[in-house]
């Protein structure tokens, strides 16, 4: 066992879910701090200085989004939220409030670990300028502002590059429509989702092996997009 991968704060009122998270995360070598209430969680986030926080959005004593806001006032620690299916609104609110990613209940442990690892990596190695991302047979070089696919250069537009940059800065993590639109087209276009539909289609046609079944630029229905790179 590789002890010492970091401390994870779990803010969750259901004891059974806490127990399952404690044993699974513990087995992976993480130290787990548990808080059963939102109030306690906000305090524990300050006193234990965890490397990552997992926060349930359905806490009885406090809105999960409120805890995220409080933590974001002083810390940029990665935050994952747990949320019930069909609550897209609350997920988006949490993400807009500063959460980095979400996992929908009920979830498999594989999915949770993938999210934890992506968020931890993001913390350790925030996106530097000269970043390259490998997406299957395509290498995107954000500093050189170009992509090479199977040895041939792919022409990218300025907006496509901005979109790729924004997704790559949150590699492995979801980026909301609002964030993408505001960052690329400006805050006045935050609800023009049709721009994204058109540009993501273009990007997939340029970069994905099978644009009809993308494996690197993924759609999170109702929420946003996620870029998954090959290591």
């Amino acid at each position, binding site marked *: 066992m590789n002890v010492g991968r970091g401390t994870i704060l779990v803010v969750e009122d259901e004891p059974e879910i806490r127990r399952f998270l404690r044993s699974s995360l513990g087995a992976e070598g993480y130290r787990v701090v548990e808080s059963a209430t939102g109030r306690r969680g906000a305090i524990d986030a300050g006193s234990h200085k965890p490397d990552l926080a997992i926060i349930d959005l359905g806490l009885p004593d406090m809105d999960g989004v409120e805890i995220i806001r409080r933590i974001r006032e002083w810390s940029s620690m990665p935050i994952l939220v747990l949320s019930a299916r*069909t609550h897209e609104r609350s997920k988006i609110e949490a993400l807009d409030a500063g959460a980095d990613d979400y996992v929908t209940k009920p979830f498999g442990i594989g999915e949770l670990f993938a999210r934890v690892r992506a968020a931890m990596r993001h913390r350790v190695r925030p996106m530097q300028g000269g970043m390259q991302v490998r997406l299957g047979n395509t290498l995107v070089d954000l500093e050189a*502002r170009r992509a090479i696919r199977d040895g041939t250069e792919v022409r990218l537009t300025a907006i496509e590059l901005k979109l790729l940059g924004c997704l790559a800065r949150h590699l492995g993590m979801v980026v909301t429509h609002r964030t993408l639109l505001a960052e690329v087209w400006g805050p006045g276009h935050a609800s023009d989702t049709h721009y994204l*539909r058109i540009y993501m289609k273009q990007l997939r046609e340029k970069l994905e092996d099978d644009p009809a079944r993308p494996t690197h630029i993924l759609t999170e229905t109702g929420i946003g997009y996620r870029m998954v790179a090959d290591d």
Partner: protein
Amino acid sequence: MSATRQWIGYAWAAGASTACTLAGFAMAPRFDLVNIAMVYLLAVVVIALRFTRGAAVFTSVASVALFDFLFVPPQGTFTVDDVQYLLTFAIMLAVAVVISGLTRNVREQARAQAVLEVEAETERIRSVLLASISHDLRTPLAVMSGASSSLAERGELLGEKERRELARSLYEQSRDMGERVAKVLQMTRLETGAMSLDRDWVSLPELAATVLDRLAERLAGHRAMVEWPADLPLVHVDAVLLEQVLANLLDNAARHTASGTVVRLRAQVRDADIVVSVEDFGHGIPEADVERVFAKFHHAGTAPGGMGLGLSIARSIVRLHHGEAWAERIPGGGTAFRFTLPRETAPAMPAEPPEAPR
């Protein structure tokens, strides 16, 4: 009764009294005063039947006043010469009160009856629903409690392989059950009208890719194909709900057809709408069932699992989007599940040069 409706009653009462008065003037030269009184009585009866007691009493008072003032000599005064007109007034008032009272009783009974009928129907639906739900949830629950108790109590006696198998079936059944519970909740939400659409511009091929990815396991045995026309526009829909429509239709096709067969997802652009189809090439469904498959808890004879809610949910969601969903037999074998979505034009997007400057 609403205030508006009350005022309408009084307006009708005033109108009826006026109409009777006009009729009375027309009748006066040739008819007896008693006959004119009868016309007023008719107005009282009609108002009492249609409106409130207040309106009926108002009609009788207005009628007697008008009758007395305009027709009973000496005209132009309220002097009641003859005691018989006092009787007329008393009778009119009595008629107004009795008839409006009777009408109110009948109305209340009818209303109570309607409430009872709705309650009985709701109760019937609820019990069918509960029976069906509990049956469909009990099976996976039995598997889960069996598998988990084996692991908890006899874990050390089992081989590594058996332990893994039990754990896997526990996981699969619980996931399946989660899906079923979600469907029941969704159906309830759709039926109570508690669902609001969160519309967004959505690309059907993009949404389909996500769904095919999500259903990869279930569709693994089938050959899934997509066919999109080049001019397919974006649709203005609730992406999460539409994803569910596609997922339910694809899941349905995968469940009811043999593995190795093709499941095809395609769209056709028409003048006013877009037709999206999920076509399978199984045995097809009997003509008599093309409508019945959309009923709640409908189970096709051969199908394993499922709650019989998927198609019903899909149709409800499509209708929320002002579309229609139906099934068709494909000549030569197979079934097409189709639905329409209104065709709309997304706002224009600023163009940009094909390549970024370096």
